[in-house]
Each structure stands twice: as C-alpha cells, then as structure tokens.
C-alpha cells in the first residue's frame, strides 16, 4: 500500500490509546463526585487534586495524539 494510506491507518491505530484515557478520566471524576457526595465539606481539598489528576491523565491522551500527528505529518 502507498505511504499516505499507511500513514492514515497508523494515525488511526495510534488513537486507540484514548480508550484507556477515557476510562481513567471516568474513574477520577466518579471518585471525585462520590467523595464530595459523602462529605461535601471536603470539596476544597479534593477539587484541586481532582483537577490535577484530570490534567495529568489528559496529558497521556495528548501523548497519543502527538504520536498520531507525528505519524501523519512527519
């Protein structure tokens, strides 16, 4: 197959990693919501950590996107 088609297939395969990231983000926010539901006074404490966890997990998604872009355009 020609290189352009192989590039597109490779980029498509690279974003399968986002499935794991989706599960991870769902985990973070489900725990965040249930911990605030159990103890609403804890909200200022856990919210910052929740946002940090979200951003760090999102970073993994963007590593996958970066690889997809590298395959597609470089």
């Amino acid at each position, binding site marked *: 197959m020609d290189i*352009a088609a192989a*590039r*597109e297939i490779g*980029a498509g395969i690279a974003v399968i990693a986002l499935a794991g990231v989706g599960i991870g983000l769902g985990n973070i926010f489900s725990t965040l919501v249930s911990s605030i539901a159990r103890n609403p006074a804890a909200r200022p404490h856990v919210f*910052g950590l929740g*946002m*940090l966890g*979200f*951003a*760090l997990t*999102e*970073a993994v998604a*963007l*590593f996958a*996107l*970066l690889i997809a*872009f590298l395959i*597609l*355009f*470089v």
Partner: protein
Amino acid sequence: MASGSSIDVLGQFELHPVLGGLGEAIRLSQSPVYMVIACALVLAFLFYGMKPAAVVPGRLQAAAEICYEFVRNLAVDTIGPEGTTFFPFIFALFFFILAGNYLGLIPHSFTFTSHIAVTFALAIMVFVISIIVSLKVQGFKFFAHFMPAGAPVALAPLLVPIEILSFLSRPVSLSIRLFANMVAGHVMFDIFASFVIMLAGLGFIGDVLAVGPIVINIALIGLELLVGVLQAYVFAILTCIYLREAVAH
C-alpha cells in the same frame, strides 16, 4: 504531500517575519512579539492593579490581590515554608503560560505556548532549577532518591534505571503536556472552521448545516478557556511538587 487531506491544520503554527522590513532584518517572528505582549499585560495588570493600594480594594486591585494570593498559597502549601523563595518564579511561570494560552484565543493572533521549543525551554528551566536546588540542599544524598526506601536491595538493578528514567522524563512530559494541549485545541478550531467553509459551498442546505460547526467552535472556545487556565495551573503545581522534593531534607 502528507496525509492527502485537504484541510491544512498545522499551517497556523508556522512562524513568519512580522513588522515588515524590520522584522525580516532581525528575523522577528510572531512568537517573541506575543511573548512581549504577554509580559507587558501581566506587568500592567499588577502595576495598575496595585497602584491605588487602598485598604478596601476596588475591583482591579482585588483581582490582582486574588491572583497574588492564589499563587502564593499554591507555592507555600505545596513546597512548605521554603515556598516563599520560589514564589516569584512560580508566579512568573503561571502567569506567563496563562497569558500565552489566552492571547492565542484572540482571532488572528498566535499562541506561543503551542511550540515545543517554547514549552521545552520552560520545562528544562524548571528541571535544571530543581536539580540545582536539590544538589544545593541535599548534596549527594540527592542520588539516594533513585533507590526508593523499603524496596528489597535485590531489585535495585531493575528499580534504579526505571527511577532515573522517570526522573528524566519530567521535562519531556511537562513540555509535551502544555504543547499538545495547545496544538490540539487550535487544530480543532481550524478543523471545525474549515467544515463551515466546506459546508457553505454546498448551496442552501449547506448554509443551514454550517451553523452546527460554528456552535461547536463556540463551545470549544469555552473548553479552551478552561484548558488554558488548567494547563497553566498544572505546570505551576508540578513545578511546586518537583521543588518540594528538591528542598526536602
């Protein structure tokens, strides 16, 4: 041509000389111009915010004080009492990245944090500062970090390279996180905007359908406002965490 798609999403990140002849003479591109604008904005915000110096602050002074307190609490809560030493650095880092991210949302402007060169420079600066502070505070005990306490010594040949690798991956992950977030956001803007143009070429039904991508772009602007501040916050708090490990005795 790469990929064969007809939407040019990465062209918006190319650098061109600005300011006509002067820019071409000294090779000035958009990136340093927007960096200067970002610094000037932050400095003007602080200067004019604190100028009244009233005991009961007006709105601008209250905003400046909230920003100062937010970063100060971040630094001191995360690093501990030595956080006051690093607070100006964390403040500058947070607001430089925040201003950079937000300036990029103005139409026809440029996001200087969307270049890996800029974010890697910031991340390497954080990394080198954390190493220098570690060596200064802990001396050569700093290398004891790579052997986690409580792990069996037999595992050391496996654990120590992994720990070293994870330590060396800090600037890489720090820079790529910020850069990829910014690139992804702006690429999505470009894609949906291109959809609008492509749909509008399809006649009347296309004109009606083209409202969809416009609405999505509006929602994406909201998302990018959130992502801009979140990425600046994450960069700052990770810097504080690395510095906390550096000053720990």
